[in-house]
């Protein structure tokens, strides 16, 4: 790139980063604002954080979201990893068709996933509650898990498995001691993706959760709809800081695993 182009693109990118971050900083700043209605700065306070931690609704929504995210992660990681291995390793009739099928949840508007599940539950007479949320989340997360694990499998050498078999390992030993350790970074990255997708998912949860079993995004939605409340600022700030910490830790762990995997090969 020429120097002039680089300067123009660089200053443009700085503007884009400002566009990304200024709103987030405003939310953080206003979480310490001593005014309960306006968006005018009146003074410093930490009272919104105090009222947040005594808010039972929020605490139970956090609990619900974590429960759904854990269940979604376990199921979608297993389903997606098995499917990725099958699609990568075997040739069979209908493979192309299945490849397309697994992309559908990625391209499907979330609202259609949500309302069609709502229709299904109504049809079979199922009462909406916490456990009607994760089936939809698994549908969405499984495809992403599959794509991530498939990407990892592309660097996978089948000769490793053959070598294990030649050395007398049976099918299970080959899987657990050769195949799985090799694809593990991919599986870990995929499960983290599934976890964040579920934790953050609003639309499907909105349609499939029952009264009294709000997930955190559903609760945030109803809070934001009721209007500007400083408690949302405090909650958002905590979530943002939490996300930054998670991103930093996960990034470091993944880089370590990857470099270790690189040494081995």
């Amino acid at each position: 790139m020429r120097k002039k182009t680089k300067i123009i693109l660089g200053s443009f990118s700085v503007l884009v980063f400002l566009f990304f971050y200024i709103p987030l900083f405003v939310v953080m700043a206003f979480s310490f604002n001593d005014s309960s209605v306006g968006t005018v700065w009146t003074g410093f306070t930490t009272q919104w954080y105090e009222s947040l931690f005594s808010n039972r609704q929020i605490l139970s929504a956090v609990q619900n979201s974590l429960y759904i995210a854990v269940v979604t992660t376990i199921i979608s990681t297993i389903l997606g990893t098995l499917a990725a291995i099958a699609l990568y390793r075997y040739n069979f009739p209908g493979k192309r068709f299945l490849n397309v099928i697994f992309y559908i949840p990625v391209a499907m508007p979330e609202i259609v996933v949500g309302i069609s599940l709502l229709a299904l539950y109504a049809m079979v007479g199922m009462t909406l509650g916490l456990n009607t949320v994760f089936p939809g989340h698994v549908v969405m997360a499984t495809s992403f898990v599959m794509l991530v694990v498939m990407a990892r499998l592309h660097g996978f050498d089948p000769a490793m498995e053959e070598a294990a078999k030649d050395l007398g390992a049976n099918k299970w030993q080959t899987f657990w001691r050769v195949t799985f350790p090799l694809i593990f970074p991919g599986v870990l990255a995929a499960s983290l993706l599934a976890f964040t997708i579920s934790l953050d998912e609003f639309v499907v949860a909105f349609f499939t959760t029952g009264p009294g079993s709000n997930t955190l995004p559903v609760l945030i939605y109803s809070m934001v709809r009721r209007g500007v409340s400083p408690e949302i600022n405090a909650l958002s700030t905590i979530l943002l800081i939490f996300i930054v910490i998670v991103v930093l830790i996960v990034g470091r762990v993944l880089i370590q695993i990857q470099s270790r995997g690189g040494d081995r090969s």
Partner: protein
Amino acid sequence: MKPIRNAYALLSPAIVWLTLFLVVPVALITVISFSTDGGYGLIIYEFSLDAYLQAFDPFYLQIIWQSIVWAFVSTVICLLVGYPFAYFIAHSGKWKNILLILVMIPFWSNLLIRLYAWVILLNNEGVINQLLLSIGIISEPITMLYTPFSIIVGMVYGFLPFMILPIYASIEQLDRRYLEAAEDLGAGPVSTFLRVTLPITMPGVIAGVFMTFIPAVSVFVITDLLTGNRLVMIGNVIRDAFVVEMNWQLGSALSILLMALVLLSVLIFTRFTSSRSKRMTR
């Protein structure tokens, strides 16, 4: 044959799950969309086109058209902003990973919270208006919230990372030797970009456009939170049909139309770009 049996055994859990919780429900709303409305949310399973006739009412057609226009405008802005931005990140050497993480952080925070941030900023008494008032550029607050402008801002803010990440991935994978070859053959920077870089990174652009347009055209929270339902999109109508008016036939018919719209735009766009990039590389 054994390998085939293994493949199906590995695939069957995912297939069963997708069938139960995606294929069957979508089939169900397709049936509902062609059923008869018995009033008070009652569904009578007799064939009827009423819901589609209702959906093709000018009132709904206008909302569908508006949704397409807003989503389209946002997607174009995301592309125009996202491509040069992704290009810069991909060429920023050792800073690359840090800049990428900086893009991911807002992306991983909840969309509702990010939209709420814009409520604070765009409000009549909001940060932007107060700033402009205090430096005297304007004498009265500008109404930004509750307008199409706020919807476009919300969409671009919410979905820009969906555009940046796939484009970044394709620029990142671009083999620098192609660029050197173009330069050796006497192409200037502009024609190298238009005839080499852009066609090769087209898959990333296509992926980015879909990942932006599909959520943008079907979203209901942006209009909901930034215009307080004063302006509506097809997503708002579908939601209201299901949870407020209990007109499931109409909600289902509009959902089927939304899926058809997404499918159609995917087909048109892939056809358009594939013929175009073929011409450009020739």
